[in-house]
């Protein structure tokens, strides 16, 4: 059941990512943006990096593929976390894809592995996140994008050693993305 649920979420992520990467850009009007590459600078605080690639699907809809990595554990431990995910954005202004206010659906899966400096492998967990975001993308000088967002959703933590019960809880997310629009 656990692996089935993880698989379901991963399939969702991959499906949206495939749409993003495989679809032709929306019928381009003159000067219409074609894509945005962005990162979350706050991830650096957690010794991580986060990258997203977003393309328009229609004149009101876009999709983004996300990837992230972090190595946050210090002290007597070390850790690595890899994340993959996708977002679907509905742009709220007519004919204003990739800029202005939007509503977003976010799905992602992250895998964290922890090692003890003395005992070695300490365990691993998978986190599945689904969230609804609201955000606003500001575009500066036609290319630089700054996108603050707020999200509300759920996070499921699955212990990969199978000893702690899976837990689901609500979560709030604050995003600040900086990117480059073409």
């Amino acid at each position, binding site marked *: 059941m656990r692996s089935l649920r993880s698989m379901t979420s991963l399939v969702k992520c991959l499906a949206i990512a495939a749409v993003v990467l495989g679809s032709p850009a929306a019928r381009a009007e003159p000067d219409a943006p074609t894509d945005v590459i962005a990162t979350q600078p706050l991830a650096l605080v*957690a010794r991580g990096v986060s990258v997203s690639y977003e393309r328009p699907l229609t004149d009101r809809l876009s999709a983004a593929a996300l990837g*992230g990595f972090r190595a946050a554990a*210090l*002290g007597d431990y070390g850790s690595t976390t890899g994340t993959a995910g996708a977002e679907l954005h509905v742009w709220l202004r007519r004919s204003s894809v990739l800029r202005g206010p939007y509503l977003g659906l976010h799905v992602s899966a992250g895998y964290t592995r922890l090692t*003890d400096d003395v005992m070695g492998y300490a365990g691993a967990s998978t986190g599945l996140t*689904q969230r*609804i975001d609201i955000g606003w993308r500001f575009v500066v000088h036609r290319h630089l994008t700054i996108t603050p967002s707020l999200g509300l959703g759920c996070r*499921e933590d699955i212990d990969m050693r*199978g000893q702690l019960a*899976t837990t689901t809880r609500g979560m709030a997310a604050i995003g600040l993305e900086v990117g480059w629009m073409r």
Partner: protein
Amino acid sequence: MQVLVHRLCLMIPVFALGCVAPIEHHDVPYDPRFGDANKMDLYLPADDAGAHPTVLFIHGGSWSGGDKTHFVNAGRRLARSGFVVASVNYRLVPDGVFPNNIEDCLCSLAYLRAHAVEYGIDPGRIVVMGYSAGAHLASLVGLASERSELASDCEVAGGQPVAPPAAVISASGPQDMRTFWRDAGDKAGVEKIFGGSLDELPDAYDLGSPRFHVRPGAPPFLLLADAIDFGGIEDMRSALADAGNDVRRLQVAGSLHILEQHDDPGIYEAGMASETPEAWIAIEDFLVRTVGMAVTAPDGGGS
């Protein structure tokens, strides 16, 4: 807001829940003299596995606030994993001026041992766990439970020192109250804990500092630290290790107040969070090493 989040969770098919819910007893009085201040919530595994390893949670809140319900999600998760969980209230300042607060925590530990058969507790496998102010008190329970000055006169303790727990998990709490007072921006807030300043009550600050009770033969310790290590957590780790004790310290870069259960502004798994997967993996590993896991966790389940 919580209702909205809960409904949102239920709307998402991937979170289809199917779990064996723990048995819960709320507001169990462990020392009736102090009313609501001395009650605990119990989360019991829904099995008949006999004597379970047990986690005693001590909440945070700057010694003046907070509540046992802060750990409801973690309590239910651990109970579904085969642990008995007791989340306790204790007297808060001004009533809970030191040592009243630690005496309450020791009384709650004595209560669990006195009612071990009733609740399916293995009295030799009780782990004390706290965050923030509760982490400070958890460390004191682990290291100073046998000090006669801290003995509780509650009915189950009878004014006698209490045997230390099997292990301690101390998350984001000060370990050296002298350093904590010196570094504090709000010294008056720290002074409320002891009823005076360090200059006025140096012996109380020493008695209330887990760091000064470190000795060989202490219970195993897991110390969790925020992105900014404060209150002498790293020094505590060194002192415990130098005395030959089993100790681990996990610090998580970018984290806020580790294990705080209210807010979790996670950002793509790579941002800042208080309840981090790293912390829970370390907790699980520590519990396995020190008191063992009772049963394999059931699949699924929400909090």
